[in-house]
């Protein structure tokens, strides 16, 4: 039987651009350039490698996001994923992580899956909790923050490098996995891949398709509220000296003045 892999990818504002908030204090996704979160490229890469090892596998990339999020799906398809699902609905605007996990879980169940692969964190929200929430909702093992992952005979194995120890993990499928940027460089789409991606199917679902009530998602349905956002004041310009033989000593004098020595 074919191994059904669903990769969750997020479309995020470009981190090297000027990111800001919209009036309603949600992340502004309209006036900024967006792209496939770089950390989710690692998820796509590992899914591709797992599928190459498997006899028969199919990779669906899944995103919840605005119209432009299709760009993220195209990129993942051009890397080699087989098909895509885009969940898009005006009522999703402002959904928090708990709501997003509900929508993703419903879409994953509707797609059918043996393995869900996520990135370690989104580059805009940077929470890193969605994979755990998905596992909780789907009622399957979470095998998260892996720097190495493999699937064999219905078992997923991986290495998790934590703060105090490095652990080897094991769980049976179905399972939710997330991979870190230590898992291996993501491939660049080839020209052939980019051309092929244009013909791959992209299915669009809205909340109704997933049988989700509009009032449990969006800003209204969010279980957290942002009351204010202020731009961090620019740091006051510091002293910059050119080393002319005494740079280390000058720096030591500064550190002493600030009582670090």
């Amino acid at each position, binding site marked *: 039987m074919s191994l059904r892999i669903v990769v969750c990818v997020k479309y995020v504002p470009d*981190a090297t651009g000027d*990111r*800001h908030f919209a009036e309603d204090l949600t992340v502004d996704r309209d006036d900024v350039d967006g792209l496939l979160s770089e950390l989710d490229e690692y998820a796509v890469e590992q899914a591709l490698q797992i599928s190459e090892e498997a006899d028969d596998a199919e990779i669906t990339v899944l995103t919840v996001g605005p119209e432009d999020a299709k760009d993220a799906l195209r990129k993942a398809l051009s890397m080699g994923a087989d098909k895509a699902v885009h969940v898009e609905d005006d009522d999703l605007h402002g959904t928090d*992580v*708990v709501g997003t996990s509900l929508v993703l879980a419903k879409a994953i169940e509707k797609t059918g899956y043996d393995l869900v692969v996520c990135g370690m*964190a989104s*580059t805009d929200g*940077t*929470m*890193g*909790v969605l994979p*755990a929430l998905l*596992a*909780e*909702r789907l*009622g*399957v*093992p*979470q*095998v*998260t*923050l892996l720097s190495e992952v493999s699937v064999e005979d219905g078992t997923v194995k991986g290495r998790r490098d934590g*703060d*105090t*120890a*490095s*652990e*080897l*993990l094991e*769980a049976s499928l179905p399972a939710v996995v997330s991979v870190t*940027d230590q898992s291996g460089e993501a491939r660049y789409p080839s020209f052939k891949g980019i051309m092929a991606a244009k013909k791959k199917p992209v299915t669009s679902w809205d909340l109704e398709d997933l049988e989700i009530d509009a009032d449990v998602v969006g800003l209204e349905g*969010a*279980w*957290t*509220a942002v*009351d*204010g*956002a*202020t*731009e*961090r004041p620019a*740091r006051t310009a*510091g*002293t*910059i*000296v*050119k*080393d002319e*033989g*005494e*740079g*280390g*000593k*000058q*720096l030591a004098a*500064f*550190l002493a003045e*600030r009582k*670090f*020595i």
Partner: protein
Amino acid sequence: MAEVLVYVDHVDGAVRKPTLELLTLARRIGEPVAVHLGPGADAAAPVLAEHGAVKVLTADAPEFADYLVVPKVDALQAAYKAVSPAAVLVPSSAEGKEIAARLALRIGSGIITDAVDLEAGDEGPVATQSVFAAAFTTKSRVSNGTPVITVKPNSAAVEAAPAAGTVEPLSVTFSDQATGTKITSRTPRESTGRPELTEAAIVVSGGRGVGGAENFPIVEALADSLGAAVGASRAAVDAGWYPHTNQVGQTGKSVSPQLYIATGISGAIQHRAGMQTSKTIVAINKDAEAPIFDLVDYGVVGDLFEVVPQLTEEIKTRKG
């Protein structure tokens, strides 16, 4: 007064500093009740009491060490049921965030991660977060259920505030999911003898400019002269010059020390994301145009192989 659950991060009963900081923050909202899972409760309890825990709930079972995350969620949920707290605070480690998120979902609560400050508010605790690589500061709160909030290290001062710290066993029934992900082996990290990166008051980091693993001792010597932790940019980590556990930035550790010294680091946005909230920032870089200089309180444009050893010597001399 309302009780606040504080999840204890510890290594065999040695309580890690971020948990003591959480006790300080918890006291602003209510009375801290600490939850200690795994071995070492006897050693931990007096320390937790000393820092304000009115009660210490303890549970130990092989499941905590043998399976990933879920057994701890089950236990924290049991504590939640036993206490009906006003809020649940968890240290913002990778594991802490996952535990907190699953608990929040189970108890129908919103979750805030990576708070850098916490105050009591009319509608519940108000969390300060630093977002978009620390370009913005936000104030948020949980609007549904009991607030579950994870807090970054170095967000509050550790304060002694002796309280009863009554130890009570917590009874935990593990869920079906508890044994889903088996931990088949664990290799503890070797101690370097230096302070923990996220907890250190001073961090000295090296980047691509350090030029090779063989040169990192120059960075380490500076760190040791200041009693500092050693950090590294992703470029240095990817090149294999320094372990990934020491990486500072978006996909590494986020640090907020009193003093951050960047040597041979350009200051890319992903690096800044992990160190921009440091109180005092110092950089040594031979390129006067490097973006790191936009952040610094003091910068030296020069060759790190000249400046850093001289600095280390001068610090040693001054310290006598």
